[in-house]
Every structure is written in structure tokens, then in C-alpha cells.
């Protein structure tokens, strides 16, 4: 059988293509990392793109959810971990995981550049910090005017009768922001005073939300005049055109750190280490600084647009160990006190 020229040409092309695949195949094979995170969804693309500029052969597969949920998910998968690395989760949560023996200690290159607060105390550290994420109150000025609400200036202000039904806050059981609020109140006002404060606040709360950003997004959309949330979210919504004022309560504000850690048992340790090294570089810190005013490398941060003034000074001296050790007790107590807001009317 004689082949006509076209058949031959196609055959040759097919061979060539096959050869190309053979040659380029292994080069193109990307390492895929499953990265658990609680970083805001809109930032994930940016983070991955910046990382891929330096490491194009490592592909990031994000699994994102609220802090509480990512934490709980990781704990639930303890015996059969699905994640390779955690990039952007509350340090209190990572402390909890360290306790369960789920983290792989690692000293990334450039560790010495970090603020001592922004790393685990063990050596090599089990986690390294990225940036601080701080509590704030989002106040919708348009809605506030409608209901004649004064702008609150302190946490105690929020317990005033005038705000009844006008405040939303995240449920600490599912939201990391909610938990840092509660743990900061217990540290600011003391154990007894903290619960008393929350009892009063509870009377004014319209509803508790599942996610920490929702109260602020709801305040931005006018669904609620006041949302207890975090500064980053407020600044973002303000930039989107929401009539918001971001209030830094005078007693001080709770904060937590977004941090990075390696999950013990990952099969891709080399790629994971590259990623962790990268997460504490200056480049990465500048990236975090686009949304967060306080980052791990000292002296690097520039002011962030729409962020309220004096936020660094207002951050309380947070005791992470207190928070991690008492997490379960605080959450159980919180649930039994406030999680049945709508009991049937008697």
C-alpha cells in the first residue's frame, strides 16, 4: 500500500508531536501542593501568582474556608491528612495542631529576619508568622444616621441600650475573628468582666454569623449598622464604596497572626519547604502588606489605605498560649451562654 504525501505528512507530524511530549513532558510536570488557608478568597489568586513568578513548577491547590472550619477540618483529618502545608491560618489554631503532633518543624531560610513575635518559640519553629489581623468595628454611617446611632468609640459603648438589635458579630465556634474577639475581651476585662461584658453585648446582638468577614460585609451592605469584624475586611469594603467608618475600640483590640506551617506526613517536603521559604521573604511580606498593616518583617510595612490610624498601638499584648489552651473551654462556655438566641418564646 502506497501512502500519499498528506498521510505521510500527518504521520510525521504525529511522530514529532509524540517526541515533543516525551521531551517536554517531565519538564512540564508540576508539583501540586494542597494548601489549606483562611486567607480572604480575593487574595488567593494574587498570592499564588506572586509565588509562581519565582517557582513556576509548583502549583498551588487552595482549600479555603473560615479559620474555625479549616482548623476543625485539619483536626478531623489528623490520621489521614489531605493538606501538604497551611499558609495563612491563625497562630492559635496552629498551636492547637502542634499539640496534636500534626506539624513538621522547619526553620525556613531568612527566619532571623522575622520579628520574634512572629515565630514559634521552639527551635526549629513549628510555624512562622505572616501578618497580624486585627479586630475592628465596621460602622455604616448611612444606616447609623437613619437610626440616630452615635459612632461607638469603645467596646463598652457597644453594650449601650441605643445599639440594641443593631450589632452583628461572628460566632467564635466557626470564625477565627469571633474567637480572637472573645479571647481578647477575656484578656482585657479579665475572666469575670469579660463574660459580663459579653452578657451585656449579647442583649444588643442582632445575630451571630458563621464567617468573620460577614458582619462587616453586612454592615457595608446596610443589612446591619454595626459589624464586629476585622480591619482588613472593613478597609476592603470601604474601598469598594461602602459608607463605612472603621472603629478601633479604645480598650484595645484583639489580634491573631496569620501563619504558615508544614503538615507532618506530606510526601512533597521539598516543594513545601520552597513554599515556606518563600512565605517569609520580603517579597511575600510586601504582598501581605497590601492588605495588612502589620507584617512579620519589622520596619517593612507601609500604611494601608483606608486602615484606621493607631491600629498597631491598639493591639493588645495577646497571650496565644492562653487562647490555645483555653479554646475548648471558652467555646463551650460561649455556646451554652449565647448560641440559643431564639429560644421559643414563653
Amino acid at each position, binding site marked *: 500500500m502506497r501512502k500519499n504525501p498528506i498521510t505521510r505528512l500527518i504521520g510525521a507530524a504525529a511522530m514529532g508531536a509524540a517526541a515533543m511530549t516525551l521531551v517536554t513532558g517531565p519538564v512540564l510536570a508540576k508539583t501540586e501542593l494542597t494548601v489549606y488557608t483562611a486567607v480572604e478568597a480575593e487574595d488567593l489568586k494574587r498570592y499564588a501568582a506572586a509565588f509562581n513568578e519565582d517557582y513556576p513548577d509548583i502549583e498551588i491547590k487552595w482549600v479555603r474556608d473560615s479559620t474555625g472550619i479549616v482548623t476543625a477540618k485539619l483536626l478531623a483529618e489528623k490520621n489521614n491528612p489531605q493538606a501538604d502545608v497551611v499558609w495563612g491560618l491563625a497562630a492559635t489554631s496552629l498551636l*492547637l495542631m502542634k499539640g496534636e503532633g500534626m506539624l513538621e518543624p522547619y526553620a525556613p531560610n531568612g527566619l532571623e529576619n522575622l520579628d520574634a513575635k512572629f515565630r514559634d518559640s521552639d527551635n526549629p519553629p513549628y510555624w512562622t508568622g505572616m501578618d497580624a489581623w486585627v479586630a475592628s468595628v465596621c460602622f455604616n454611617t448611612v444606616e447609623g444616621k437613619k437610626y440616630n446611632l452615635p459612632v461607638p468609640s469603645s467596646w463598652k459603648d457597644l453594650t449601650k441600650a441605643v445599639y440594641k438589635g443593631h450589632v452583628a458579630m461572628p460566632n467564635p465556634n466557626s470564625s477565627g475573628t469571633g474567637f480572637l474577639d472573645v479571647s481578647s475581651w477575656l484578656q482585657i476585662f479579665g475572666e469575670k468582666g469579660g463574660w459580663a461584658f459579653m452578657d451585656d453585648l449579647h442583649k444588643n446582638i442582632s445575630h451571630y454569623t458563621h464567617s468573620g468577614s460577614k458582619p462587616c460585609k453586612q454592615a457595608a451592605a446596610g443589612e446591619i449598622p454595626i459589624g464586629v469584624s476585622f480591619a482588613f475586611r472593613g478597609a476592603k469594603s470601604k474601598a469598594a464604596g461602602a459608607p463605612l467608618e472603621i472603629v478601633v475600640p479604645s480598650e484595645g483590640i484583639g489580634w491573631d497572626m496569620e501563619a504558615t506551617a508544614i503538615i507532618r506526613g506530606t510526601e512533597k517536603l521539598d516543594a513545601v519547604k520552597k513554599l515556606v521559604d518563600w512565605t517569609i521573604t520580603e517579597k511575600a511580606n510586601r504582598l501581605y502588606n497590601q492588605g495588612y498593616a502589620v507584617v512579620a518583617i519589622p520596619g517593612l510595612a507601609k500604611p494601608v489605605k483606608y486602615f484606621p490610624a493607631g491600629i498597631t498601638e491598639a493591639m493588645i499584648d495577646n497571650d496565644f498560649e492562653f487562647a490555645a489552651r483555653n479554646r475548648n473551654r471558652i467555646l463551650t462556655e460561649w455556646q451554652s451562654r449565647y448560641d440559643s438566641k431564639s429560644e421559643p418564646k414563653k
Partner: protein
Amino acid sequence: MANLTATESAGRVRPKLGRDDWAMRGLMVAIGLYLIVSLALPLYAMMSKSFEIYAYQPQLIEFQVNEGQGWRPVLNALDLGEELGVLKRGELVTTADGRLQATRFFPDFSFLSETRYRIRNTEPASGGFMIRGTRIVHDEWVEYSSGDFRRVTLRPGISTGLGNYLSYFSTPALFTSIYNSLTIALISTLVTVSLAFGFAYALTRSSMPFKGAFKAIAMVPILVPSLLPGIALIYLFGKQSLVLKVLQWMFGEEAVAGLWTSLIQGAYGPTEIYGPIGIVIASVFFTFPHALLIILTAMAIADARLYEAATALRAPKSRIFWTVTLPGARYGLISAGFVVFNLVITDFGVPKVIGGQFNVLAVDIYKQVIGQQNFQMGAVVSVVLLIPALIAFTVDRFVQRKQVAQLSARAVPYEPKPNRRFDNLMLSYCGLVAVFILGVLAVCQYAALIKFWPYNLSFSLNNYNFDVMDGGGWEAYGNSIRLGFYTAICGTALVFLGAYLVEKGRGFGYGRAGFQFLAMMPMAVPGMVLGLAYIFFFNDPANPLNGIYATMGILVVCTVTHFYTVSHLTAVTALKQMDPEFESVSQSLKQPFYRTFGRVTAPVCAPAILDISIYLFVNAMTTVSAVVFLYSPDTTLASVAVLNMDDAGDVAPAAAMGMMIFYTNATVRLVHAFLTKGVLTRTQAWRGR
């Protein structure tokens, strides 16, 4: 051979079992096994999980103290704890992340003292203890200075018992949900069934125009996820109420303010759309078509002779309604009632979006599992939710069995006579319902296109930029469509074959009865429960089927199983219409069953097969409850994205995605209508003869 002798000795004449029969039985057993693996075993795994408890195990911990005069005798932590009142036997249950500080056992502890402490975990596999977050996994004594000892905490270990149920029923935040769920389901059922009855009455007993259009509009809620009406209600009646804004625009702000305040401040205290009222309205929206379909079927078979007799006896219209119409529809009404009750009590989308602080069972499961990853408590709530669902299901099956005898062979179909006043009344009623249904969709579409509600009302497509939001972006939408097709194809094949075998197979009575039972079971199992059961069953590394966890495969299996029953019933109904002679004839012609199946049965039942596949597709697109526990980063779904975006406060994008689901389903539905028409002319020409 043994079988044959057994038959002979029984003295009955039974057809000899051929290769066909064995093949059919084998296939039936295979599909039955599928149902056992995809339903019964996961449920069993869930039940056992609900008895798994985390509790501190102080009986396994020992302390020793040295205050400078040498080591004191060994102390058992449980005895010590009981003595001090720190612990009580039987009250040691906690959650997986529970921690108990070791210093609680030493009331006069001071971290500055010179006292030294020793602690030992006698059973390293148990919960044990940890220091500064690091677990000690051996059974040797560990010695600490007081400064270090204050960092020691006890961890809980796993055991079995009723502890979870006890703590469920002693936590008001949890068990009040039972009351809430039942109330909501009852009220929604009453409202939906009444509304649907009115609608069905108009469609069957009046001669108003546009019946076809009304029926089509009434079916629209089936095409959207149940989250969508919740989102629409937020826009309509939330704090930035669209209704209020429209009223203000029409009548001026002052005129409306009074009315609005009196509505919001209602007679029974402040009312809000977030809470029971919102749940009921949204539940009515999404259950309406289900109730309507059942009631319509019941009312369509009315006997005109009864109406003639009543009119001849000069019974007034109202009397006819109470003595003829209503009794005729009673089984349909009861059945619709139970179906709606079941849908509402097991639904999770509506209360999640608009429930506010009003806790219901389905959301509790979600909160326990997704919010706190307290799987044991999630399993307990699931078992609790299973009970009302099972009761409603059983009663419904019982009532449906009674329905059959209604229609006698001599019945004459009822033809409504025109009556202008009555027809206009019915028309305006149906018009109102239609406006409400379409209004909900219109509001969602409007909200999706607004740039920043309510402060920037210019139009923009920003909300369609799903990739920068939670939920998986446009990829989730593509995944949903894939899931829809896979479910439709695999599900239809499986369900129809199963129904064929059970309907047309001969003998093997117990096997067939068992199969029928298995096929009915999925309907009684709420989606949330099924999804949770799948986690327990398939995420167990010891399960050989563990490989399908976190893949598209598990989503397909779960969705097919979740919607198995209705598909199965549709198939059985279609098959029952076929004369068993076909099988006898083909058998006497020595044709294998698969040939009859492929050449006769399947083509004749083509419309039913198409119906099943469309039903599965649409439900795969809209379902949230089961798959919310099972999706993975690679298999995010559009319906779950709606939920997650709403959860994060991105309500407008959630509405946008919800509407994408609606358009997809509507398109598929239209294609289906055309296909059915084509298939009908090609395969159903015999019906015309």
C-alpha cells in the same frame, strides 16, 4: 438441580429457571448490593459514630509530688480529681480538642514554688497528656518543675457510650432545635398544601385561560436551589428592603414609614425576615411544586358523575366542594402534606440563608460538622432528624397505598364549565402565585446585576467574577454541569434497569421484595444525614472504597442514591403499563431478556427514561444538603458555591450563581421538552393507533 427437586416436592408448577432468570437475579442482586453499600452501610457507620465519645481518662494518669522531702506516694488522677471535686465519674465527656490543665488537681499550686511534679500515662495509646502542646507517647514517668508543670494538660481519649446523646439533650441550644424544626415544618406544610390545593383547584375545576403557562410557572422552583428564595427574601424584606424602597418611591417616604414600622414592630413584638417567618415563606416557595404535582394527580381523576349527581340534587357550590371535591382529593392532600413536611424538616438551604439565630436540626448538623468538626454530635443530630423524616415517610407510603381504589372503570372525566366570576377569581389567584414565583427570580437577577446594593445602583457584571470569591468560581459551575450529566446517565441506567428487573423478573419473591424495600429507603433519609454518613463510611482508610472519597465519583454515587426513590417509582409506573405478554412472547421465541429490554421495553418507556434523567440532572444541579459534606477542592459545585458565597457575606454573587443554575436547568428542561416530542413521535407512534 436442587432447586428443581425442591419445586417438585412442593407439588406446585413453577417455570424452570433458565439462564435468563439467573442473569436477571444476578443483576438485581448487584444493584441491591449497590444500594446496600451506598446507603445501608454508611447509615450504619453513622449510627455507630454517634455512640463514639471523647472523654478524659484520668483513671490512666498518675501523679507524684516532691515538696523537697522526697517523692510522696503515687496518686491516681481520677481518685484525686473526685476527692477535690474537679471531676466526676461519668462527667468526663468533652470534644476532641478538650484540654484539662494538670494544675487543677493541685489547688495550692504555685508556679514559683520549688515543688517538683511527676506525671505518667499508664496507657500510651489513650488520650494521655501533653506539655506545651507536645504529646507524651510513652508510659514512663516524666518529671517537671512547677514552672513547667503548669503547661501540662490532659487530653481526651476515644470510647463508646451514650455520652453524646446525654450531652445533646442537656444542651438547650441543641435540643430546642427539635421544637423549632417541627414547628416550622408544620406551619410550612399547612400553608403550602392550602396554597397548592387552591392552585390545583383552579387548574382542574375552573376554565380559566393560560392553564399551561401557570402550570409551567408553578414548576419553576424545582429548577433553583432552595437557597435562592432565601436570598430573594433578604433583598425583598431585609433591612434594605426593595419592597420598602418601591413603596416609598410610589407613595412618598412619610406615608409608608408608619405602615412599615407597624409591620416590623408587629403585634407580637419585632418581626424580622431573618428567622421563622423567612424560613416559612422560602420553604413554601421551594416545596410548592412538589405539593402541587401530588394534589394535581389526585384531583385530575375526579369523576364527573359525582358532580352531575350533586348538581342534580341542587347542592350549592360550597356543599359540592366539601362533600365531593375535598374528599376526592384527601389522599393527595395527606400525601402532599407529608412530602412537604419531610422536605422542610430536612432542608438546610433555606434556614442557613435566612434563619438568622433560629436554630433548626438540619443547620445544627452543618454547624456541628462543618463549623466545629464535631462529627459525633453531628451524627447524634442526624439520628434525631432521621426520626420525624422516617415517620413522615412511613405514613406517606401507607396513605399512597390507599389511593388506588379511588378511580373506578366507569368514571367519566370531569370537564369544568365556564363561569366568569369564578374563573376570574381563580385567574387572579393563580396570577398572584405566579407573580410571587417569578418575582423571586427577578429580584435575584436584579440583585446580581447591581454594582453595590444599596449604595451604588449602577449595573455591572462584577458579581459574576466568581473566581475572586469563595466557593470555587466558574470551575464550580462547570463541575455542577458535569455532575448533572454523570448523575443523569449513570443514575438513569441503574434505576431503570433495577426497576425492570424487579418488575419483570419472575419468582424470587423475597429478593424482589427486599429490593423494593431498599429502593424506597433513600427517600426516608435526609440529604444532610446521607452526606454525613458518607464521610464516616468512605473516609475510613480501612474501607476498600476509600479511593472514591473526595472525587467526582462519590458525588455521583451520593446524588444517584439520594434521588433514587422517585426515579425508581417513575420507572416502575411506566413498566407497569406494559403488558407482561411481551416477556412471555419473547421467551417463547427464545430471545434473551436483554434483547427484549433493548428492543421493546426501553423504547416504549423512552418518555419515562427521559423524565428520570431530567429529574436527576436538575436535582444534581440544585442539591446542597448531601454534597456539602463531600465536595473537595477539585470538585466544588455551583450550588455549594451559592451557599459559601452567602456565608462569606457575598450575597449578590450568590444570587448570580443561583440564577446561573436556574438558566442551565431551564435550558435543559426546554431541550428535554423538544426531545420528548421527538422521541414521542419516533417511538410512541403505536399509542396513536
